[in-house]
């Protein structure tokens, strides 16, 4: 019970705080926060917005899981952006070039994405493990390089196809597409379920397997993990590569469920969203799911703000302040809990002052 409270209280407080902040900003700019809120909530019922939220949340969920795998080891995979885009591009090229029986075709495309993401993340992984290059820098640089690589691959004289004024990869035949679930208002990507399964897999991996234990141990204390027989270099490489592999999936829901090709106008910026959502969800699969939905809701229903004349940018402020206030709230609660735990331990062992050599950091 207390655990649920400490898990839920901070995000609720933080969202309220962030919403309050935005309300103030809105009032200053002369708009009514209530109108804005009403428009955003009302938007969910409009057209395919509800389905879009679910679909986008699935994408955000995947990128955030990728980020969270890194975070478990205190690795900051800023390169998710480049990894998912390159992976989606190459997977689309492979998918468009191949003719295979239905399920196999889809699987090959997905595996290609996973592989490309993993390989692209392997570069910073190796640089970190063997050359000590901070993954923050190398992934920032590689994000740029991946743009160039994509541009090169998608050139009409490489693998690109001119589509009017757009360039895209060759379209993927229906055999390679991932069937979705049509609803009255839009089609839910089939890969939404892949994302959910990934979440379960992530949870299982982290909490139930030896690998997950080693990953968390390395993140918590690299020195203790090493003494406990965890190979630090190997963990760095595996964690980053795994993160890249998951990131490699992030572009595919849209490629396999809607666009059936990778184009110049394929979306960008999920990498940064992934970091933010993972932070919001505190690397916990359920928390990330919640964060992804919140983020997707804010993104998608922001479209309604234009209709009521409220600056859409208020949503960015909301997102930024939510991330910050969530962690501050958790920090405050954590400090409180730690002190409470110390008190509890001490009072259960009543008697003389408990010798406690190490002050608890």
């Amino acid at each position, binding site marked *: 019970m207390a655990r649920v409270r400490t898990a839920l209280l901070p995000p609720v407080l933080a969202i309220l705080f962030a919403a309050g902040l935005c309300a103030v900003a809105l009032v200053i700019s002369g708009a009514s926060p209530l109108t804005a809120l009403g428009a955003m909530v009302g938007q969910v019922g409009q057209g395919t917005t509800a389905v879009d939220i679910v679909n986008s949340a699935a994408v955000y969920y995947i990128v955030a899981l990728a980020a969270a795998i890194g975070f478990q080891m205190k690795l900051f995979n800023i390169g998710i952006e480049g990894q998912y885009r390159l992976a989606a591009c190459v997977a689309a090229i492979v998918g468009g070039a191949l003719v295979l029986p239905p399920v196999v075709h889809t699987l090959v495309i997905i595996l290609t994405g996973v592989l490309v993401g993993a390989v692209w993340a392997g570069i910073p992984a190796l640089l970190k493990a063997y050359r000590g290059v901070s993954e923050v820098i190398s992934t920032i640089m590689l994000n740029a390089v991946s743009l160039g690589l994509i541009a090169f691959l998608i050139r009409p004289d490489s693998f690109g196809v001119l589509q009017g004024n757009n360039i895209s990869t060759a379209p993927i035949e229906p055999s390679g597409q991932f069937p979705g679930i049509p609803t009255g208002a839009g089609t839910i990507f089939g890969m939404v379920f892949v994302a959910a399964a990934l979440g379960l897999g992530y949870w299982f991996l982290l909490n139930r397997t030896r690998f997950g234990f080693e990953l968390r141990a390395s993140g918590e204390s690299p020195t*203790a993990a090493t003494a406990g027989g965890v190979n630090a270099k190997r963990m760095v490489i595996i964690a980053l590569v795994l993160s890249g592999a998951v990131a490699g999936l992030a572009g595919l829901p849209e490629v396999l469920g809607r666009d059936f090709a990778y184009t110049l106008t394929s979306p960008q910026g999920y990498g940064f969203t992934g970091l933010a959502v993972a932070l919001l969800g505190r690397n916990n699969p359920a928390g990330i799911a919640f964060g992804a939905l919140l983020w997707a809701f804010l993104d998608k229903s922001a479209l309604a703000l234009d209709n009521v004349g409220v600056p859409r940018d208020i949503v960015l402020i909301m997102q930024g302040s939510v991330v910050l206030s969530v962690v501050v709230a958790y920090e405050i609660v954590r400090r409180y809990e730690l002190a409470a735990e110390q008190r509890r331990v001490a009072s259960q062992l009543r008697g003389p002052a408990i010798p406690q050599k190490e002050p608890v950091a």
Partner: protein
Amino acid sequence: MTEYAVELAGITKRFPGVVANSDIHLAVRRGEVHALCGENGAGKSTLMKILYGIQQPDEGTITVDGEQVRFRSPADAIRAGIGMVHQHFMLADNLTVAENILLGAEAQLGIGAKARTRITELARTVGLDVRPDLLVERLGVADRQRVEIVKVLYRGARTIILDEPTAVLVPQEVDDLFVTLRGMRAEGFTFLFISHKLDEVRAIADAITVIRRGTSVGTADPRTVTSRKLAEMMVGSELPSPQTGESTVTDREVLRVSGLALDSDDGGRPLLSDVDLVVRAGEVLGIAGVEGNGQTELVETIMGMRRAAGGTITLSGADITRAGTLARREAGVGYVPEDRTRHGLLASQPLWANRILGHQSRPPVSRGGLIDREAARRDTQRIIEEFDVRTPGVDVAAAALSGGNQQKLVVGRELSGEPVLLIASHPTRGVDVGAQAGIWDVLRRARADGLAVLLISADLDELIGLSDTIKVMLRGRLVADADPATVTPEELGAAMTGADGAAA
């Protein structure tokens, strides 16, 4: 002028769950060395931190030179002429000696040539002989200690707190330090001196205050009091001592290290060279050495945390030189690291998760790559009962346990899974007397059951008391053997510094 340099009256300090100091009284005369004795966690350091302004007392008063003061920060204490050499060095490795000394005291002489001259002067009085622009990371322990003292002197402190300054020093270095202290006492400096080594206390102190469980229980006269009497005042009961009893050494070799060498990271002097040793079942092999002479590296190389540059390590006949740490653990090596918070525990994880660390590939806590949480919980419960770990349960975070209980948990874990070899590095460091006795007891029992133990300890009494054989380590080599039945701590100390000519 009053007779007391410092008077603490009725000091009380509470931490969450702990009353570290309660109604402590302490009066220090000017120009004396005043020793503070008490077991681990008695509250000595806390009291000193209060005097130095790092922490604020909940109750009580501080009087310096007859004037009541309130220290809000160390800066206030420094201004009142109080300096402190901390139990753990407070040095920034990546700053130079001069920078470390000048930090916070730049206002006095600036940070230029004048300041340097003054540093060199002070360095001479404490026997520090290094260039002021050398990085501190290049200094040995004794020199670091001297830098700490110069730091205090530079600030013009007249009352100097020395919190366990001798813990990391060998007897010869302790003697050097005492020479310096006596000289300074003659010049009118006042010292507050903390040590667990009661002989030292009796040798240097003019007065002793004993603290037990957070309160001052009385004072003693070092000229008349015996170590045993002091210990009894501290503990409130009789002092246990490390004794092995009859030999259980067998002739079955468990660990053999031959020709082991380890290069340093920066291409300097090798960290280990030509190390040969054998540990047999039922034997405790003690390694003596001044900190920084390669014991840590030796242990970490045997554990596979560092890669040997040469030589072989065999465990029960199998060559494990190339094996990883986990493989070595699986082959039956237990490891009690010297720094449990850094190498032994996952502070924010529950106890049962800590039980898994190092055993993540073995039953009962793990099967086929999967973690068995229930089994881990059960086995943690077993350790708690068997090793008397005082905790409300297996689900609390490791950080919530006291140091001694943390250490017992680590020892219990490392003795799980039927190890054949236990590497114990300073197993009782920072552990209070009661827990200390418990750990000694555990080691003795395991040895009787045929466990081979490689013991590293800075506590020479512990080393002599527990070991069947002692080897002395100096500059990365094993330079001498000693028989624990006959050797004295002084002789051992001499060998450890190379003063006996062993390190030719």
